[in-house]
Every structure is written in C-alpha cells, then in structure tokens.
C-alpha cells in the first residue's frame, strides 16, 4: 500500500505528466505511420532521456509504447495498411467495416478494445506477474516451435473459404522466410549474390507493400469501390447496446489471449492478435457469426485490437519480473531502464515496489490518453475516407515509399516493398488471401530455428517433441485448426471468399 501511495505521489507531478503526454503524442504518430514502429520510436527517444530523471524518461518511453500500438489500428481500419505489425489482424475486419461506411464505429472499437486490452493486462501484471512469467520460462525450443506451428495453422481460418489458396500463400510466406543466411549454419539461401538479402526479407516493407501499395494498385485498377458513407461522428446509434456487449466479450477474450501470448518472450502483439481473432471466431455463437469474420465482424476487430494491446502488459510482466524482454519494444525498454539505474527482475519488486506501481500507473494513464484521442478523433479520421480517392492513393503511396525506406535507410527495402505491392495486387485479383503469407513470413524463422534447436538438444530424436505436453497441446491444436477447413474445402462445401 505504501508503494502505491508513493507511486501516486510521484505521478502527481505536471512535469512527469507532460513527458507522458509527449510520449503518447509521439507514439500515436509512430504507430499511425506505416514503416515506423513502437520499437523505433522508443529507440530514437532513449538518448533524449539521458538529460531527465528516470521517472520522466520512463514516462515518455512508456507513453510511446502505449500510444503506438492503438494508433497502428487507425490506418489498418481506414486504409487497410497496418500501422504496426500488431495491427495486421485489424485489417481483416476493420477495413471491410470502412468500406461498408462504418469507419467511425470501427475506429471507436479500436480505441475501446485497445484500452480494455491494455488495462486488463496491466491488472494482470499487478496481480499475477510471477506465475505467468514462470510459465513463460518453462517454454523451450520445442514449445516455441509448437506455438509458431499453431499460429501458422491458423492460415486456414483466415483464408475465408479459399483454403487451398490460403495454404499456398502461407507456404510462399514460409519459403520467403528462408531467404538470407541460415540461422544455424549461416549458409546463404536464395540470396542470388545480393548483399541486401543476406539478412533475409524484412517483414515490414513486405507488409507495407502487400497492404499499402497493393491496395493502391487495386484501386487504380478501378475494380474496388471506395466507401460511400461513413458513420456520423458522435452518433451513438452506430452500435446497439447488445453489439457493444458483444464487443466487450470479444475484447475480454482478446485481452486474455494477448496477455498470455505477450508474456511469452519474443511472441508479440502480431501473433497474439491473430490467435485471438481465430479464437473469437471459433467461440462465436452461430455459423453466421463465424462467417462474418474477415468481412467486417465487430467481434473479430475487438478481439484482435484487444489482444494486440494486451500483449504490452504481458511483455512488461516478463520484462519486469524476470528481466527477459517479452517483445521488441520491451527489449529496448530494458536498455533504457538499465541506463537509468533500474534493474528489471525479481529484486525490482522487492527493493523498488513503488517503481513497479509507477510504471503501471503511467501505462494506465497513457492507455487512457490514447483511447481518448482515438475515440474523439474517430469522427474526423473517418471523414478522411471522404477525401477524393486520388488524394488518399497519393498519400498512401508516398508513405509506403518513405516508410519502407525509413526503417533501415535502405533502398533495397523500398524495392522489396514495390515487389510486394505488385504481388499483393496479383494475389488480390486471383483472390489468394494475403494473411497467410504474412503469417508464414513472421512465423517461419521462429518455427525453423526452434525446431532445429529442439532437435539438436534431443540429438535428432523427433519423438522427444511429442513427449513434451505443451508442444503436444499446440500440435493437436494445429491439426484441428487445419483439418476442419481443409475437409470442408475438399468436400466442396466452402463458399468463395467475398474479398
């Protein structure tokens, strides 16, 4: 209790709150612009914190972290371009809602679900840090392989009736993830002598190309109609009370999934959002409700947004309790904490409990501020879709170019983005789902490196994998996730996708 009171006294300082507000503002910018990420924002601002106190520096960095993830959902909803990798799943239902003239509603769901996800995970951070972090420590290479395999198996679920095309798209993503130096032997694979490909195909330019440039090219081809109408700002009749309750239920499900997945080191909001989306679909009350997923489902959007943001609390749990980063932004935060003399780990809770409470309170305030901006800005932002389409195309096109270049200051990334854009256009015309390709690209390296590590540890004994219960659980889940849609498709009962 004393620690909580000390923390409350610490944050009742307008200097601190100003730094937090600045961080949230910058986080919103970094999150909303494709190509700029929360990790990048935190890393760029760490040097600026050298000249301020630990609390003030932490406030700014946490503001960026908690502001960027919700902001990533804004372009995902409005333009089908994820602002951050964690927002990929938000495009599946958010953008169809925009095209149906419900952009304002979708943005409000993004804001509300983001707040719910973050606050739920922060509560978990306070209540159950140690047990969850201990569970995360029990995961070895076999379990990580199983988790990644389970994540990849969801490609059948996100293929919306085009199961075989989705599987092929996923395998293409898996194949693309092998480009570069082999993780175990450093043998160059599919680099064709190009030094830019030695580090592999960077994921973010591909994401920007597929979803950003690809979308622009589809519109240029004149085969997609822009949203005719957006919902009126401040019009609460956009959703009924029953619909908001459904959003809340899905948001809570997403929060739970996101917190647990986020606590697993190196499993971030992107994986959490996809798993949560799939779980929300599976737990839908009716077949009709399940069919809505990927076509503008409020539940799907809520679950994915909540999970993407709940992963923040999960990652911070692991980082603060064990000193192990839960995701990329928390890895940079560890460095910032160490610079300011704060050592994450079990001793932090014993020796500096007020610091832990300060962090939780700052993140909660940042989450609230980001939600308020997102909610109030839903109407004006939704009006952007009323801009004449050529202006939107031009902005998206330029942001795609500079965003993919800004990541590594590499022209090679821009060429990759361009190629991915053309691929995205072709895939859309052939109705080949893009989600599985992205899943394969993200999860491929995790799958490969962990499988090979697991087999090295077991000296080549494949049966050692199935003797691990957590891996077996993920493996059975993967089979179930793949088998159902595949059997349906084989029997010809699956209907063609609407998008």
């Amino acid at each position, binding site marked *: 209790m004393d620690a909580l009171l000390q923390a409350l006294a610490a944050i009742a300082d307008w200097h601190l709150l100003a730094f937090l507000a600045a961080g949230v503002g910058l986080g919103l910018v970094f999150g909303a612009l494709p190509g700029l990420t929360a990790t990048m924002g935190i890393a760029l601002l760490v040097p600026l914190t050298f000249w301020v106190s630990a609390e003030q520096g932490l406030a700014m960095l946490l503001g960026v972290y908690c502001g960027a993830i919700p902001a990533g959902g804004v372009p995902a909803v409005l333009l089908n371009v994820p602002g951050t990798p964690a927002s990929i799943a938000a495009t599946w239902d958010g953008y169809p809602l925009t095209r149906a003239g419900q952009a304002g509603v979708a943005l409000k769901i993004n804001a509300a679900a983001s707040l719910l996800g973050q606050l739920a995970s922060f509560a978990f951070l306070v209540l159950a840090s140690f047990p969850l972090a201990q569970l995360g420590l029990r995961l070895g290479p076999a379990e990580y392989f199983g988790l990644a395999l389970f994540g990849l198996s969801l490609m059948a679920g996100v293929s919306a009736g085009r199961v075989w095309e989705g599987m*092929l798209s996923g395998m293409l993503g*898996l*194949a693309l993830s092998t480009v570069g130096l082999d993780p175990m032997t450093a043998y160059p694979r599919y680099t064709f002598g190009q030094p830019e490909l030695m580090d592999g195909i960077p994921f973010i330019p591909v994401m920007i190309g597929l979803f950003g440039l690809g979308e622009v090219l589809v519109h240029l081809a*004149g085969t997609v109609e822009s949203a005719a109408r957006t919902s009126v700002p401040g019009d609460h009749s956009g959703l009924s009370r029953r619909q908001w309750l459904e959003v809340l239920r899905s948001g809570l499900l997403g929060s739970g999934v996101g917190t647990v997945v986020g606590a697993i080191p190196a499993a971030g909001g992107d994986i959490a959002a996809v798993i949560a989306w799939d779980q929300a679909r599976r737990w839908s009350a009716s077949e009709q409700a399940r069919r809505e997923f990927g076509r503008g489902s409020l539940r799907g959007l809520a679950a994915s947004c909540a999970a993407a943001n709940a992963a923040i609390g999960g990652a911070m749990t692991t980082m603060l309790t064990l000193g192990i980063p839960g995701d990329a932004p928390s890895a940079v935060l560890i460095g910032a904490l160490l610079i300011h003399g704060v050592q994450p780990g079990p001793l932090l809770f014993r020796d500096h409990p007020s610091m832990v409470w300060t962090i939780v309170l700052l993140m909660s305030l940042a989450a609230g501020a980001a939600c308020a901006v997102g909610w109030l800005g839903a109407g004006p932002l939704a009006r952007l879709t009323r801009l004449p389409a050529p*202006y939107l195309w031009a902005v998206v*096109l*330029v942001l795609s170019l500079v965003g993919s270049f800004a990541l590594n200051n590499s022209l090679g990334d821009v060429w990759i983005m361009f190629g991915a854009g053309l691929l995205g256009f072709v895939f859309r015309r052939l109705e080949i789902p893009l989600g599985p390709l992205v899943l394969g690209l993200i999860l491929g390296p995790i799958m490969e490196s962990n499988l090979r590590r697991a087999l090295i540890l077991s000296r*080549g004994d494949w049966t050692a994998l199935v003797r691990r219960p957590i891996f077996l659980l993920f493996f059975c889940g993967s089979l179930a996730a793949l088998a159902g849609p595949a059997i349906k498709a084989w029997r010809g009962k699956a209907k063609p996708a609407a998008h």
Partner: protein
Amino acid sequence: MNKRLSVHPVAIGFALLGLYLLWSARHFPSAPAGLPGPGFFPAVAGVAMLGFSAALALGRPGEAVQWTAGRAARIRLVAVILLMLGHLSLWGIVPFSIRTLVLVSGVLRLGGVRWKDAIVAGTLITVAVTVGFAYGLHVRFS
C-alpha cells in the same frame, strides 16, 4: 483486360515454385547426424506447395479474373507502376523532393485531378513528407 483464367495456372505456378524449392534444397549442405540442414524448410515448403497445388487443381473449376475495370484503368495502373519504377531507378541521382513531386502529381493527375490542383497538392505532400521524415526523423533520402 478481362481474361477467363482457370485456377489451374495458379496451381501450376505454385507447383513449379514448389519443384524449384525441392530442387534447390538438394543443393544445400546437409547437417551432421541426420539433423535438419539449411535445405529442410525449403523442402518442406516445396512439398507442401506441391500437395496444396494438386488439391487446388483438382478441387476448383476455372474462374474469370477481372484484372482491370477497362482500358482507362489499365493505362492508369501501368502509368503509376512506371512512375514508381522511375522514382526508384533515379534514387540518388535526382533529388528526393523532385522525384516525389513528379510521382505524387502524376498519380493525382492520373486520378482525374486537374493539373494545377495536382501540382499544388503534390507540393504540399512532398514538403510535409520531407520535413517530417528528413528533418524530423533525420532520414537521409539521398
């Protein structure tokens, strides 16, 4: 440009890619003691592609594919792709602001915006991006 395009060419395309992955995987060095080497995952992806391509070819009849909405849309699409190719090809040769102004103005004009409005909007967008990224985030475009 509307062509009746069977999904079989899609399946064939992926099957060929799968065969290439299988063939290339054979040329990667193998790991000791029977462990998976660098060629394992490409081979897995290749085999899976062959299997799913077969399932696709057997399971779905041909469908028409509408590539563009008409001749004007086709010209617009090709022109923007060429503008982007030019932008990327001249990177480091022509200043970023000039290339971007040409690209953005061209895209707007192709979208039906009048020349004057396209150039004004193109200038504003170019300035905003340059100021934000080059001066705000110290991104060096050339």
